[in-house]
């Protein structure tokens, strides 16, 4: 009943009626009291007045009655007053809300990325028991510390390892899907039969493979991805049991992967791991090369038995490796062991460091925002000291004043939180759409409940932490000093200035940290982009025609011959060539080398290690098309089709021949190069990233190799303008070669540095934001100190100080906390340098140019922020100031 009545009162018309009733009741009763007093036997001369006084305060009665009706009315009042107060100073409100929104938005965006990439667990059953395994092969260790796994080794482990419940393997392939629309090349993963069981995932539809799928004569079955199911099979559940034609063989579709299925990406699985960007089709592994000593091609993971540690699992695998070496000593000369990682750590490990550094940067930025907010609030507090003093003098309780000051801050926090969250939603959406950076699982980033909670938690924390300080000062306000008027030169004003100078100093120190970080990252990117790549980036188009695997060597060679013929005839094409792996497309065909018919592999004269090279199969004019300079001898010519010749890169020549002329010597490498005569030496090229050493190469005419993957087309003008022409030309050649994928060399280079660029852009954005905030803070403090010292400055000028002297006085005072903060920031940057060392390239964490540049940038911005108030101070009119006092 009680709550019902009270609820009733919340309705505006009930409330208004109630107010009217109460007013009438009070009026009537007061009239009655006055009448009563007048009617007494001996009326007092001021009876009416006395009666009114005795009756009591009518306004108080109404106020208190309202408090009975709405117990929260006090808070609502505070809220209304706070909104009014904020609306009265729109500049303050806008600046504080926007700066808070900036900090919250940046933090929430980065948090949602970190949450998706690093924090969210994998969708596997008990992912903590999953290990990722690679092999360490002694003779190759100096080039590749670890390698993917040999399939026979994997099978040996699977049959013998006791510490693992099961071990799974996969490797990449591709296949052409025919029927139902255009033929399409699909990325395929060949998986062990127990793939699903080891990861502990179930198909969303149909069934998983089992070990019987590995038998060569088992019925051909595939599991397809959720994406493919939607795209090609219109998400129909009738798909199970249907046939799909892959590479001219009919497969039965038995299952569909769950939509959230993810497997670590190639760049997370270490060098030479082979896995397509996305997986559309899963096929069981049914055949493999019976080679115990090479073919390290399989990505292997295992599920530990419950209670077994990673170390125990690894020790057992090492034991098994030793048995493999013993039984197959003919194939494997020496040392074989394994390296393991928790699968959870593998995902995102290359970006984890970047993200954590950026997250700390964003926290620093947020801290700056908070400090700035505190500074603004303090300034507002001093500006309103008179108002607060008046309110205290009029009997407002200090607690109440503090609460009303805090209400204002909370309102700002709320508005900043909402704006910041909206900004984060937009930023995350833009990020996942553009996704120029290959962040694993970044497409899963959402501004979801935890992120929103994080944003608002942060906003409220900022508000409480930094709103309490001004609120506390407000509650300590001395009404006497405050009311004494303009003469601000009180101790509390000075104390406030000192506090604010301290805040500005810390802001500057934090800002220095961010600027140094941004500067180091900019410098790193610059260095990476200015590495001598060894090939031409401009005007080059890479075309990857999807030649069906069913094409034998002759058919594939014929296709590429015709393609080159057609492309070279196009106007606007300067050169066209074929290569099995284009520059920056990764390392492949890695083998040892033997020189001049020697049985053993050649050793590097300098390090005494076996030399490992990448074999590349190229057409004639490849070096012209790729822009790789010829250093010595000659390049390939069409007549080399039937000759056994090779060209080596400068690095290979240096390693194998140590300064002597390599021409005329013969080299053998892998299964496809034997005793090829060296006819030329060309410049070095980066095969994978731009950041390491260039990769030693041996080039062989592609007619010997069969399958070539890429066509390099060097255009006379903009390669993008040529895309359609080139695509049509390639497409017209052979109807069974499906649409060719295409990219420019510039895109490939951009992709290589995308993560670095992203990191730099984020840190740079933070740095600029921090700089602006610091400028704002500095300006506020200097302007405040000028206001405080108005009288003093006026007296100085009246006594003959010149404008320049006043200006330098203000500047010196304003720059004092800046210089102190700068010093602290630089020292902190030096101390924290090692934390970011892994992200840098070509620049030391203590790079004097970067430190100096950051300091100079900050100092000039600080100077600019001080100049306006300093100038205003020097333009003061002493006569007016002294009159005002």
């Amino acid at each position, binding site marked *: 009943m009680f709550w019902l009545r009270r609820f009733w009162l919340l309705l505006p018309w009930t409330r208004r009626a109630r107010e009217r009733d109460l007013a009438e009741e*009070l009026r009537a009763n007061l009239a009655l009291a006055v009448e009563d007093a007048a009617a007494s036997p001996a009326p007092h001369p001021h009876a009416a007045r006395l009666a009114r006084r005795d009756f009591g305060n009518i306004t108080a009665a109404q106020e208190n009655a309202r408090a009975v009706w709405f117990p929260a009315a006090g808070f609502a009042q505070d809220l209304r007053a706070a909104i009014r107060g904020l609306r009265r100073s729109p500049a303050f409100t806008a600046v504080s809300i926007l700066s808070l929104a900036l900090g919250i938005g940046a933090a929430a965006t980065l948090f949602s990325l970190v949450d998706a990439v690093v924090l969210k667990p994998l969708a596997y059953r008990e992912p903590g028991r999953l290990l990722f395994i690679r092999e360490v092969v002694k003779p190759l260790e100096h080039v590749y510390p670890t390698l993917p796994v040999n399939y026979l080794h994997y099978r040996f482990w699977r049959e013998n390892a006791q510490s693992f419940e099961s071990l799974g393997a996969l490797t990449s392939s591709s296949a052409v899907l025919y029927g139902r629309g255009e033929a399409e090349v699909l990325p395929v993963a060949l998986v062990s039969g127990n793939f699903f069981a080891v990861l502990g995932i179930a198909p969303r539809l149909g069934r998983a493979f089992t070990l019987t799928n590995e038998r060569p004569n088992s019925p051909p079955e595939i599991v397809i991805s959720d994406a493919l199911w939607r795209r090609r099979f219109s998400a129909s559940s009738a798909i199970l049991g249907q046939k799909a034609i892959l590479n001219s063989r009919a497969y039965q579709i038995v299952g569909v992967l769950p939509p959230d299925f993810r497997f670590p990406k190639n760049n997370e699985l270490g060098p030479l791991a082979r896995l397509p960007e996305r997986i559309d089709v899963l096929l069981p592994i049914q055949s493999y090369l019976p080679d115990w000593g090479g073919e390290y091609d399989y990505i292997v993971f295992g599920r530990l038995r419950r209670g077994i540690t990673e170390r125990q699992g690894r020790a057992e695998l090492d034991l098994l490796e030793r048995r493999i070496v013993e039984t197959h000593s003919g194939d494997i000369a020496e040392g074989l062991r394994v390296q393991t990682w928790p699968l959870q750590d593998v995902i995102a490990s290359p970006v984890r460091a970047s993200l954590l550094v950026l997250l700390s940067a964003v926290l620093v930025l947020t801290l700056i925002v908070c400090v700035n907010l505190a500074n603004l609030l303090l300034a507002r507090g001093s500006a309103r000291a008179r108002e607060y003093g008046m309110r205290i003098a009029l009997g407002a309780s200090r607690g109440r004043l503090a609460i009303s000051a805090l209400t204002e801050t909370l309102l700002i926090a709320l508005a900043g939180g909402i704006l910041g969250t909206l900004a984060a939603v937009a930023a995350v959406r833009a990020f996942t759409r553009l996704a120029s950076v290959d962040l694993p699982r970044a497409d899963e980033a959402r501004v979801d409940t935890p992120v929103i909670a994080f944003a608002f938690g942060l906003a409220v924390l900022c508000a409480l932490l930094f709103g309490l300080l001004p609120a506390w000062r407000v509650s300590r306000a001395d009404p006497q000093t405050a009311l004494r008027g303009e003469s601000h030169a009180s101790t509390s004003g000075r104390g406030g200035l000192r506090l604010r100078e301290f805040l500005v100093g810390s802001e500057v120190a934090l800002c220095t940290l961010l600027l140094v970080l941004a500067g180091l990252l900019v410098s790193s990117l610059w260095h990476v982009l200015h590495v001598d790549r060894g090939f031409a980036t401009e005007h080059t188009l890479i075309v990857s025609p999807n030649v069906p695997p069913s094409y034998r060597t002759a058919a594939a060679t014929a296709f590429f011959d015709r393609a080159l013929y057609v492309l070279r005839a196009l106007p606007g094409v300067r050169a066209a060539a074929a290569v099995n792996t284009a520059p920056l497309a990764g390392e492949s065909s890695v083998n040892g080398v033997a020189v001049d018919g020697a049985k053993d592999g050649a050793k590097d004269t300098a390090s005494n290690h076996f030399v490992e090279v990448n074999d590349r199969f190229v057409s004639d004019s490849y070096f012209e098309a790729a822009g790789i300079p010829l250093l010595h001898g000659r390049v390939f010519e069409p007549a080399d089709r039937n000759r056994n010749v090779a060209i080596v890169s400068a690095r290979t020549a240096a390693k194998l021949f140590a300064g002597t002329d390599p021409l005329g010597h013969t080299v053998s490498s892998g299964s496809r190069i034997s005793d090829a005569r060296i006819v030329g030496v060309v410049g070095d090229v980066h095969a994978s990233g731009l950041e390491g050493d260039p990769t030693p190469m041996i080039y062989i005419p592609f007619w010997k190799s069969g399958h070539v993957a890429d066509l390099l087309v060097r255009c006379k003008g903009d390669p993008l303008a040529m895309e359609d022409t080139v695509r049509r030309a390639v497409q017209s050649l052979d109807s069974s070669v499906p649409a060719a994928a295409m990219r420019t060399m510039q895109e490939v280079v951009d992709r290589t540095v995308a993560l670095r660029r992203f990191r730099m852009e984020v840190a740079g954005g933070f740095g600029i934001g921090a700089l602006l905030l610091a400028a704002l803070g500095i300006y506020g403090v200097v302007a405040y100190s000028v206001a405080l010292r108005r009288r003093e400055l006026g007296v100085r000028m009246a006594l003959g100080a010149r404008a320049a002297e006043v200006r330098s006085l203000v500047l010196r005072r304003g720059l004092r906390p800046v210089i102190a903060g700068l010093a602290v920031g630089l020292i902190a940057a030096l101390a924290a340098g090692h934390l970011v060392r892994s992200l840098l390239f070509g620049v030391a964490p203590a790079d004097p140019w970067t430190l100096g540049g950051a300091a100079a940038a900050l100092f000039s911005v600080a100077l600019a922020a001080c100049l306006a108030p300093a100038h205003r101070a020097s333009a003061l009119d002493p006569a007016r100031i002294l009159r005002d006092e």
Partner: protein
Amino acid sequence: MADRLEFLQGTLDMLILRTLALAPLHGYGIARALRQATDDAIQVEAGSLYPALQRLELQGLLAAKWEVSESNRRLRTYRLTAAGRKRLHAEVSRWESFVRAVSQALNPRPAEE
């Protein structure tokens, strides 16, 4: 005026209920009755009285009705409800035991030997 009594928390509510237990009254009537009953020692201000009436009414201890007085004035008259009467009894006995306890504490009887 200086020795006007301050109210203990909840005492005013009890006094209002007690006053209305005798007869329905309007606000000023309650104040006057209290003043007369305590020889001017208790003077209830409008700032306390009317909000208290609102509160008691919200709690369902009082019922209010607009009535026209003999002097032809519309006045809001309060009447005790059954719940109000019950509350009054409870409050009074609570008060009495409280007073007994306090006076015992103020004038302790000599311990019996």
